[in-house]
C-alpha cells in the first residue's frame, strides 16, 4: 500500500469566500483529484478559474469550506498547531513572484534556512549544512548566501524560492505559476531545474499555470479548470491527443504558435469573458461561451465522467460528431511532437 499510496488526495474540495453585502465567491466548487508519487500534476485555467485557490488550500493556506485533503494518507483538512507544522514539512510552495515572495531584509541563506527553523528540522549545525546543500542543488554559489534578494536577478531569486521550498525535504511541492513572472530565456532555466529536481529527488508537483505549453512540457497529468470546477482531466497523452472538452479545445487553440505564420483561420474563438464566480450559471458553466452549447447544457450541469483509463470530461456533447470534428480539426492544425 505505502509504495503506491497517493501523495495527495483531494475530494470534493470547496473554497467559498464571503463577500461584503452578502453572497459568496464560489472560487473552488467541488473538485477531486489525486497525485501519485513522482508525478507532476498540472492545474490549468484562466484567471478566476480557482486554480491558485485550490492549490493553496492543499497547503492549508486558506480556509476550506468543504471536502477533504489527504497528504500521504493523513487527513489534513482540519488539523492545527504542531500537527499542521509536521504536515507542512511534506508540502511546500514555490510562489509566482520571486520579487514579492522573498523578505527583502533577510539574506538569501537565512531565507532558505527559515523553514528548517520554523518546522524544527534537524539540529542547528545540520541546518547550516542543509542550506549549503540546497544552494548547490539549485545552482547558486555558497558565497551568495550572504547577499540580499535585490542583489539577485529574477531567475536567481526563483532559485532561492525553490531552495526554500526544498529545505524540509518535502515530497510535494506546489508551484504557483513559478515561471510566469520571468523573462523567456530565464523560464527555460527554471523549468529545466524543476524537471531535474523532480527526477533526482522523486518529487511530486502540483503545478499551477495558465500556459499550456509549459504544462505540457513539465506535467504528467493535467486537470483543466473553469470557474471553480474541473472540466477535463487526464494524462498528458490523453489531454493532448484527445482533448475532449470544448473549453480545452479553445485553450489549445488560443496558444499563439510560432508555426502558424500570419495566424490560423481554424482558430476556435471564445466570445466574451468567463462569467462571474459570484453567481455561476446553473447548468454547464461554460455553456455561455461554448460554440456547441444546446438547451440541455444550459439546464443541467454535466458530471465529470470517466471515458476510460483516467481520462474524464464534463461535457454533455463530448462524443457528439460536431465536437469530435472540432477536435480533429484542432489536431490537424497543430504541430506534432
Amino acid at each position, binding site marked *: 500500500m505505502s509504495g503506491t499510496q497517493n501523495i495527495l488526495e483531494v475530494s470534493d474540495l470547496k473554497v467559498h469566500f464571503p463577500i461584503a453585502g452578502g453572497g459568496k465567491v464560489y472560487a473552488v466548487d467541488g473538485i477531486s483529484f489525486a497525485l501519485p508519487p513522482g508525478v507532476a500534476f498540472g492545474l490549468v485555467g*484562466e*484567471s478566476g478559474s480557482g486554480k491558485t485557490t485550490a492549490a493553496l488550500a492543499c497547503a492549508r493556506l486558506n480556509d476550506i469550506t468543504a471536502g477533504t485533503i489527504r497528504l500521504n494518507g493523513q487527513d489534513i483538512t482540519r488539523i492545527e498547531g504542531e500537527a499542521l507544522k509536521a504536515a507542512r514539512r511534506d508540502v511546500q510552495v514555490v510562489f509566482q513572484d520571486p520579487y514579492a515572495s522573498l523578505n527583502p531584509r533577510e539574506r538569501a541563506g537565512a531565507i532558505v534556512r527559515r523553514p528548517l527553523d520554523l518546522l524544527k528540522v534537524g539540529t542547528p549545525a545540520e541546518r547550516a549544512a542543509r542550506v549549503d546543500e540546497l544552494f548547490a542543488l539549485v545552482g547558486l554559489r555558497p558565497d551568495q548566501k550572504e547577499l540580499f534578494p535585490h542583489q539577485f*536577478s529574477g*531567475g536567481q531569486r526563483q532559485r532561492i524560492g525553490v531552495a526554500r521550498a526544498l529545505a524540509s525535504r518535502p515530497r510535494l511541492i506546489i508551484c504557483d505559476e513559478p515561471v510566469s513572472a520571468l*523573462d*523567456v*530565456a*530565464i*523560464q*527555460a*532555466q527554471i*523549468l*529545466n531545474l524543476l*524537471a*531535474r529536481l523532480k527526477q533526482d529527488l522523486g518529487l511530486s508537483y502540483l503545478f499551477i499555470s*495558465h*500556459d*499550456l*505549453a*509549459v504544462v*505540457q*512540457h*513539465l506535467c504528467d497529468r493535467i486537470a483543466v479548470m473553469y470557474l471553480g470546477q474541473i472540466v477535463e482531466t487526464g494524462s*498528458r*497523452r490523453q489531454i*493532448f*491527443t484527445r*482533448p475532449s472538452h470544448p473549453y480545452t479545445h*479553445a*485553450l*489549445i*487553440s*488560443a*496558444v*499563439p*504558435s*510560432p*508555426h*502558424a*505564420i*500570419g*495566424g*490560423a483561420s481554424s*482558430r476556435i*474563438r*471564445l466570445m*466574451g*469573458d468567463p462569467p462571474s464566480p459570484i453567481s455561476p450559471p446553473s447548468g454547464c458553466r461554460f455553456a455561455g461561451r461554448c460554440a456547441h452549447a444546446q438547451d440541455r447544457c444550459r439546464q443541467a450541469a454535466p458530471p465529470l465522467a470517466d471515458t476510460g483509463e483516467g481520462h474524464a470530461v464534463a461535457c454533455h456533447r463530448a462524443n457528439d460528431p460536431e465536437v469530435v470534428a472540432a477536435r480533429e480539426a*484542432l*489536431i490537424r492544425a*497543430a*504541430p*506534432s*511532437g
Partner: protein
Amino acid sequence: MTGKKLLSVRNLEITFRTEGEDIPVVRDLSFDLDHGDTLGIVGESGCGKSITALSLLGLVPSPPGRISKGQILFEGEDLVQAGERRLNQVRGNDISMVFQEPMTSLNPVYTIGEQIAETARVHFGLSPAKAWARAVEMLDLVGIPSPDTRAHDFPHQLSGGMRQRVMIAIALVCEPKLLIADEPTTALDVTVQAQVFDLFQELKQKIGAAIILITHDIGVVAQMTNRVMVMYAGRKIEEGPVAEFIRDPRHPYTRGLVSCIPRLRLPPDDHPAPLFEIPGVVPSPWELNRPGCAFAPRCARAMARCRTENPVLAPLGDGRAAACWLETEAAA
C-alpha cells in the same frame, strides 16, 4: 526627401543619466516602416524595446533620459527636433500607443465614453455630442457589446479584455497612421489575448494603420507581424521577414530565444527533452562600456574577435540582417 517611408529611424541613441554619467540604453538603432506594415520588436526585458517605442512619441522621460543622437523621421519630418506643440499634434493623430496594463492606463474617475470622446474633441474639435457619438462608434468597432450603454461604464466595471479594447478604441479614434502596441496582451488571459489579436488584424484591414508590436512571445510575432527586429542590450542584432526568422534564426541569441520556449504539440512528446538554455542574464547598461559583442559572455560560440570588436549589422540577403561575427565570417 525620404520618399515613401512612413517611419525611418536613423542611428538613434537614447541615454539615461545615472550617477553623473550618460549611460546609453539604445545604441545606433536604425529601422524603417512602410505604410500598413507590421513590425515586431522582440527581446528580453531591459533590451531597450519599450524606450524605443516611447521615443517615437517624444515620451522619453527627461531628465534623466534623452535622445542624444539620431533622427526619427516620420513622413520625412524629424520628430527629435519637433517641439512639444508639434509632438502633441503627432500623438494620437498620427502615432498612438496601446500600453501593457489596461488597468493603470485608464482614468478611473471618468466613464470610458468620456475618455474616448475627449480624444476626439481635442484632436478633431468635435462638439461634445458628436464626440460622444464617435466614442460609441469606436466602442462598437472594437467589439464591445451594447456600446451605447457601455459607454457610461467606468473602467472598474469592465473586465481586463474589455479595458484593453477601450485602450485600443482611444488609440484608434483619430485613425493614426502608426499604432504602437507595447505588450498589449501580457496582462490578459490566453483566450482574451486571442480575441484582442483578432481585433488588431481586423482593424489593420479596416483602418490600414502600420503597427509596431513589442513582445517577448515568438508565437505572437509569428501570428501578428510580417517583419521582426530583435534587440539585445540596446542594439538591433537581427531583422528580417517573420517566416525566415522563425525557420532559420541567424544570431545565436535569436536562435536561443526561438528554441528555449516549450512549444505546444499535438500529439505531445511523451519524454520532452530539456529546454535549450541561454545561460546568464541580460547585462545592465553600465556593464556595456567594454569592447566586443554584448552577447559574447552568454554565447556558446563566442570567438576571440567577439570579445574585442562589436559586430556590425550585416545584410544576409532577402531583407535579412544579423550582427554576428560568425555570419560575417561565413559570408566572407
